[in-house]
């Protein structure tokens, strides 16, 4: 009896390990290994060969030599085109995130306050566009924003403007595209947070003399902080590395790091440089993620003590 129990217990703990190890294996295989490969390539030299980069280890005179090429990273730090691209990416992603927040918060708030049936319809409408291919939607925006596109035709037709606006191939077009594409990623976590808000807390605030706007600032907003942070991360992180939207809508004037990376890889065929660009971008993105984790960890601690 006892041995059976013990055996069951060990089996239980084994199966627990099995359950945990699957996602970890997945991460190892599809995140850690590719990352290490890219990291390795970023320290190599470009050569004309297949593959077009050198190995890091060399066998010579009965010793193993490791040769790390740091010029890629040094170049990244000094050359204007890279620095510009990074700063531009961060700026565009940052402003887009802010715009998403400013547009998404009222939307999420309104949806969360709808009666349950219309709530689901409204959520559906937020998600529905993503059933259409991303590329097709971006091409649709090209059709709208072009000099002789729908928007200009409409504005000219109404008579608000008399010369067509040049939006296509400007940073503005890139902003429009990014905000449009990432808005659902802002709305959904905010909605999930706001719909849980205990409305009696707002009543308590009114009861204690807070006007609606003040109650929003002191109760709703602080209590939705997790949703804000989650939404901003979900928009900011992919937006920094965004390639397609600035390429198709923003034109050559919108220099983001994604384009730089693609240039190095496809045009210059410089795999090591492209890898270094990717690694630095990843490190830049780590900063907000770590801050986020830190805040969350602290909050958890507060909750437990």
């Amino acid at each position, binding site marked *: 009896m006892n041995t059976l129990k013990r055996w069951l217990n060990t089996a239980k703990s084994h199966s627990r390990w099995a359950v945990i190890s699957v996602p970890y294996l997945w991460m190892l295989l599809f995140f850690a290994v590719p990352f290490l490969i890219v990291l390795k390539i970023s320290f190599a030299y470009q050569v004309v060969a297949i593959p077009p980069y050198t190995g890091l280890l060399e066998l010579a005179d009965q010793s193993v030599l490791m040769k790390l090429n740091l010029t890629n990273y040094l170049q990244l730090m000094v050359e204007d085109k890279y620095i510009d691209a990074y700063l531009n990416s961060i700026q565009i992603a940052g402003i887009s995130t802010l715009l998403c927040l400013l547009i998404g918060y009222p939307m999420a708030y309104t949806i969360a306050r709808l009666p349950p049936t219309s709530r689901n319809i409204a959520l559906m409408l937020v998600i529905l566009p993503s059933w259409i291919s991303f590329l097709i939607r971006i091409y649709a925006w090209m059709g709208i924003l072009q000099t002789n596109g729908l928007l200009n035709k409409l504005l000219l037709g109404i008579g608000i403007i008399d010369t067509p606006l040049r939006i296509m191939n400007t940073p503005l077009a890139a902003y429009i595209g990014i905000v449009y594409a990432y808005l659902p990623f802002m709305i959904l976590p905010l909605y999930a947070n706001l719909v849980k808000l205990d409305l009696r807390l707002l009543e308590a*605030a*009114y*009861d*204690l*003399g807070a006007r609606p706007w003040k109650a929003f600032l002191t109760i709703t907003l*602080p*209590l939705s902080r997790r949703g804000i942070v989650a939404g901003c991360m979900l928009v900011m992180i992919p937006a920094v590395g965004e390639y397609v939207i600035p390429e198709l809508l923003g034109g050559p004037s919108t220099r983001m790091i994604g384009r730089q990376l693609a240039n190095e890889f496809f045009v210059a065929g410089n795999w090591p440089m492209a890898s270094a660009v990717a690694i630095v971008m990843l490190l830049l993105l780590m900063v907000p993620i770590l801050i986020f984790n830190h805040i969350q960890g602290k909050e958890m601690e507060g909750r437990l003590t």
Partner: protein
Amino acid sequence: MAANPEAVRPERSAADERYVFIDDVTKEFDGFVAVDDVSLSIRKGEIFALLGGSGCGKSTLLRCLAGFEKPTTGRILLDGQPMNDLPPYERPINMMFQSYALFPHMTVEQNVAFGLKQDGMPKPDIKRRVEEMLNLVQMVKFAGRKPHQLSGGQQQRVALARSLAKSPKLLLLDEPMGALDKKLRSQMQLELVNIVEKLGVTCVMVTHDQEEAMTMATRIALMDSGRIRQVGTPDEIYEQPTSRFAAEFIGSVNIIEGVIKDDEKDFVTIQSAALAHLIHIGHGISGFEGQRVNFALRPEKITVTKDEPADAHNKAQGVIEDIAYFGSHSVFHVRLPSGTRLMAHFANRKRWASENFTWTDKVWLSWGDNAGVVLPA
């Protein structure tokens, strides 16, 4: 335990009598009448309880007072001032919410200070007032804690401090003890009454717990499907119910249906199929001969004896069907020859006293001439 209004305010002016004046208030939710033409006058300094079963509209009436619901018709006046058009944040009324609604992201101190801040009170004054309030509810030690780090009883103290901090003209309590266990409940009932009395704040509370209403309130309004059925002090409602509903809602009661046989100036008799003898009432009532009535008799007003009581007008013999032992007293369920069952309390004044009686024993029940209440059928 209940607050004694005479002690708090020896003399009351007419304005104090109508400190809170609810005037023909009706509240409808798309056709459904939740509060039905309610009129109430609540005195300054009293603890007034709205008592009723689930869905009777007591919370809705309280929310009308707080300003979260607008009465469909009728007026609410506080200290002579009409409240109807004031939003909740402009009413000098504060509420202690059911399950408290403490702000989870603020400390105890910040929770209590919240209302004061909205008034733009200077910081040092806020600090002083918060400390005073936390002292009052004995929560100074916990000033820096967040609500989730407090027990239910402690959360309630904070909620009370928060709703009292602004010295409201009217304090509203929604099921104040609803989230507490039984033991803590009776302790907090006492404490809450003490604090509210100390500050002299007028208080309207909502509860479905008759015991809570009886222990805490100076007066009780009994509600049923949106209407007020009776208003009175706890003992008035208990001893002098005006309807079968009121008699049955509070405490336990034997209801004997009958017809008025003799309607004299100084006594009345009621004939009932349930009893062999006429019920004799030692005073006149406003009824007429032949009127169908309910005779309400509390179990503790009945005396249980082995032998036939010689001098009682009102008596009945029966068989003990069931005995429920409650320690301080036992409840006998006695079946009369007519088939009617009556409940009678037997005080266990001596140890093992109720052992003199057992199942299937024949016993005599008797009660005094003024022991019961005659209610319209």
